[in-house]
């Protein structure tokens, strides 16, 4: 609107309607006096005074006939429109003064009001003489005669341009906020804002430039009526002090006014011609700033005429800039909110996805995973554990922790596990325990449970995470290793017995054939033979050629275990079964489960143990000493004895029923004297072995020696032969092995009453070593040591000293 437009104060309350005056009132006289077209009434004396008053009223006043035709206008009206009174009275007055849109819009309502007798009003834009429209509130008040007919209409116009501008700004603000709330784009919102303002400032146009993300350029975002050619030239716009109106406003953060584009030196020359060509004669730009003085953009107005903005113009663009700021900030807030919300949603979705993946991962772990509360109550388990148990989570939880543990844990582990578990939970540090857990197939498997506490920030336990790893295979392997270790220990002890396999005499061939026949079966075998004939070797051969070859071979020398302990050794015992039974111990039968147990010297078993052994042979079951639970085992029993069990049965020392159970497949191992054909081979093997051990070179055995060996009865069998040859090798000082016949004459004839040859041999050996130690004053190694004197390696001599229990220190003095 023009800056020099006349401002008309509104002196009437907008909310009141003027009461319809009647004839006789002072205004009636005025109406009569001014009703020039009639020319009838006589002029009043104070006409001039009244006209002066009417002309001084700061409102436009037009007097209309009942049909709406103007007949009078006051001076304010004439001065504003620049029309003469005749022009006001012309039929074209309305079309000439009022905005075409308003004329069209109000035609019906105006006609309707004029046809009535009550006051009415409307708002319309009236064109001033400066070529600009301003908004006016026009109130129509009728002058009625005594019968109530309209004589005149008094149309008073109040300039409401500022109010309309404020209303426009309020409406624009309200609408923009609604649009933002409805999710309209910022571009749409700002275009609407500009369009709203454009209505007020037409034909001028407004624009909104927004700061680019880089903070260095402005981009046109709103301005629906800005010429396209101008937009393409000025957007984007650098933010500098010398690059145009908006760029400068954004750069300086201050309002910039160019009153005349054609001449203003601040207007860039390269855009001057283009601006003028697009009807831009003046322009002013308002920076849109945040409360923190950050530039969001600019609100600009391009005027079609060169002029300085009025206070109203400036207030308008300032108000519009304010609305734009609200719109931009709201939009950005919403975008930030939306972005934050989306981020939260994405984070949640990602968390859920990760949780799902983690859950899947945990579910597919081969280990069982459990989550317990701080007291150890089960909260969660993974699928692996549910699958193993064949239960749902709720079923897993059961009625409580105690019931769950009682249900799931092997009875033998129960007491220990409960103790370890409660101690671990109360300590509050990681701990682990091994226990057997019942599976859905009704079988127990060993698991290693590892418990780890989860602490909150103050350090209190809030959860326990537990993993259970299946260690059944490891446990079995451990059992096997333990059994093998037992077997190995015995193997080492009895390693000297393996030479019995050397030989291919008829007796040995017969034994081999029997082993081949019985090995693949699960039959119990009773091996009989004199001591030193290799009964254990036969048992091992049977085991090694059986389907149990990869399982344990447990050897028990029944004669070597005190009778009071043999039952415990064979069948195990429970904790507290007897004094000294501090913990449960598995017996040899349990250790041999799945494999073979070899009961050497079975004839020495006490009567009560024979009964238990009979039960094992019949039912494959037994009870631990002090226990009441039957334990089932799958064990093959091989037994051996050098006693005549038939005679023992007759004498009542051995149960007949047990003898029959053992004697399913008897094998009789021949004594060495019955396989003299094998003696040369055995001698060859033993000489080779001990010569290597002693570091000697022995190429042959004298013929007499060999004859001596073959003629001797060998009551100690191969073990005795081995000892003789070991001794002969020690004393041998040539490449031919010889044995003095006196070695045998002294001991022969062998009888049970006489001292065993092996014992005599050990006595002689001990005496020789002691003599050597005496000579060397206890020194073993070195050139003058006892080992050198005896022609033995130092290690061999030390071994013998230990074996024969010689106190070497007593020779040092």
């Amino acid at each position, binding site marked *: 609107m023009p800056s020099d437009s006349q401002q008309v104060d509104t002196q009437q309350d907008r909310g009141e309607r003027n009461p319809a005056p009647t004839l006789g009132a002072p205004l009636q006289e005025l109406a009569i006096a001014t009703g020039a077209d009639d020319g009838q009434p006589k002029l009043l004396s104070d006409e001039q005074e009244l006209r002066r008053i009417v002309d001084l009223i700061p409102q436009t006043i037009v007097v209309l006939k009942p049909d709406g035709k103007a007949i009078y206008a006051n001076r304010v009206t004439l001065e504003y429109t620049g029309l003469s009174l005749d022009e006001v009275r012309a039929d074209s007055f309305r079309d000439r003064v009022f905005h075409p849109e308003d004329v069209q819009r109000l035609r019906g309502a105006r006609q309707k009001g004029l046809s009535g007798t009550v006051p009415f009003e409307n708002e319309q834009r009236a064109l001033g003489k400066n070529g600009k429209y301003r908004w006016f509130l026009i109130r129509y008040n009728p002058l009625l005669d005594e019968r109530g007919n309209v004589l005149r209409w008094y149309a008073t116009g109040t300039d409401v341009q500022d109010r309309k501008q404020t209303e426009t700004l309020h409406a624009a603000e309200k609408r923009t906020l609604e649009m933002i709330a409805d999710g309209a784009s910022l571009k749409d919102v700002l275009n609407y804002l500009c369009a709203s303002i454009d209505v007020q400032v037409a034909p001028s146009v407004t624009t909104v430039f927004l700061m680019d993300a880089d903070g260095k350029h402005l981009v046109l975002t709103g301005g629906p009526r800005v010429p396209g050619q101008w937009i393409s030239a000025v957007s984007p716009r650098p933010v500098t002090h010398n690059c145009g109106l908006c760029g400068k406003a954004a750069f300086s953060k201050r309002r910039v006014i160019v009153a005349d584009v054609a001449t203003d030196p601040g207007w860039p020359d390269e855009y001057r011609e283009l601006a003028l060509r697009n009807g831009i004669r003046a322009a002013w730009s308002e920076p849109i700033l945040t409360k923190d003085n950050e530039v969001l953009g600019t609100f600009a107005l391009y005027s079609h005429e060169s002029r300085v903005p009025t206070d109203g113009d400036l207030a308008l663009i300032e108000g519009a800039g304010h609305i734009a700021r609200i719109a931009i900030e709201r939009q950005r807030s919403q975008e930030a909110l939306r972005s934050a919300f989306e981020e939260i949603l994405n984070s949640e979705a990602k968390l859920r996805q990760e949780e799902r993946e983690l859950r899947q991962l945990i579910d597919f772990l081969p280990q069982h995973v459990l989550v317990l509360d701080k007291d150890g109550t089960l909260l969660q388990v993974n699928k692996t554990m549910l699958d193993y148990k064949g239960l749902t989570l709720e079923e897993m939880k059961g009625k409580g922790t105690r019931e769950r543990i009682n249900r799931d844990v092997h009875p033998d582990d129960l007491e220990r596990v409960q103790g370890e578990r409660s101690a671990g939970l109360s300590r509050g540090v990681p701990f682990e325990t091994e226990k057997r857990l019942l599976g859905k197939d009704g079988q127990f498997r060993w698991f290693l449970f590892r418990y780890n506490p989860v602490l909150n920030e103050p350090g209190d336990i809030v959860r326990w995470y537990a993993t259970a790893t299946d260690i059944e295979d490891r446990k079995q392997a451990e059992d096997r290793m333990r059994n093998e270790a037992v077997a190995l220990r015995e193997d080492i002890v009895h390693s000297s017995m*393996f*030479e019995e*396999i*050397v*030989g*291919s005499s008829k007796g*040995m*061939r017969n034994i*081999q054939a029997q082993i081949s026949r019985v090995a693949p079966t699960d039959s119990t075998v009773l091996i009989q033979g004199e001591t030193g004939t290799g009964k254990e070797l036969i048992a091992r*051969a049977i085991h*090694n*050629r059986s389907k149990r*070859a990869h399982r344990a071979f447990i050897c028990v020398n029944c004669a070597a275990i005190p009778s009071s302990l043999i039952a415990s050794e064979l069948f195990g015992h429970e904790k507290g079964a007897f004094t000294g039974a501090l913990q449960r111990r598995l017996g040899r039968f349990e250790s041999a489960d799945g494999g073979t147990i070899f009961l050497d010297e079975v004839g020495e078993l006490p009567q009560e143990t024979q009964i238990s052994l009979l039960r094992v042979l019949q039912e494959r079951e037994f009870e631990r000493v002090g226990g009441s639970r039957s334990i089932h085992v799958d064990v093959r029993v091989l037994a051996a004895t050098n006693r005549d069990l038939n005679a023992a049965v007759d004498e009542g020392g051995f149960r007949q029923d047990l003898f029959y159970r053992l004697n399913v497949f008897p094998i009789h191992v021949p004594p060495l004297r019955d396989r003299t054909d094998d003696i*040369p*081979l*055995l*001698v*060859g*093997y033993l*000489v*080779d*072995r001990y010569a290597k051990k002693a570091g000697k070179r022995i*190429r042959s055995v004298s013929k007499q020696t060999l004859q001596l060996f073959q003629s001797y009865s060998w009551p100690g069998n191969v073990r005795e032969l081995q000892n003789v040859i070991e001794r002969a090798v020690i004393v041998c000082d040539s490449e031919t092995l010889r044995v003095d016949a006196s070695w045998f004459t002294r001991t022969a004839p062998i009888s049970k009453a006489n001292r065993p040859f092996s014992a005599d041999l050990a006595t002689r050996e001990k005496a020789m070593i002691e003599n050597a130690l005496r000579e060397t004053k206890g020194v073993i190694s070195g050139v003058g040591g006892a080992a050198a004197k005896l022609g033995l390696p130092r290690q061999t001599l030390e071994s013998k000293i230990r074996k024969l229990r010689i106190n070497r220190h007593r020779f040092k003095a």
Partner: protein
Amino acid sequence: MLNIEKNSDGHKTTIRLIGRMQAEHLPALQALIKESRPRIALDLEQLTLVDVEAVRFLGGCRRNGMALLNCSPYIREWIAKEQKSGK
């Protein structure tokens, strides 16, 4: 217990037998020989003990052209005895 070590230089394979060799070890040894090159030698230096089945197997190996290296006198004698009794 028998340990078996195999060493091949591309032309000749040496199989070293360590410990005690009995009937139950023969299938594994036969398989190893089968998959080895034709020129095979069995090194018996550390073979401490054999049974009759092992002796017969070694005798068979020797008849099939395999060299028996570092053979103990008693094993050699036993092989000879077995061959003699088998004829």
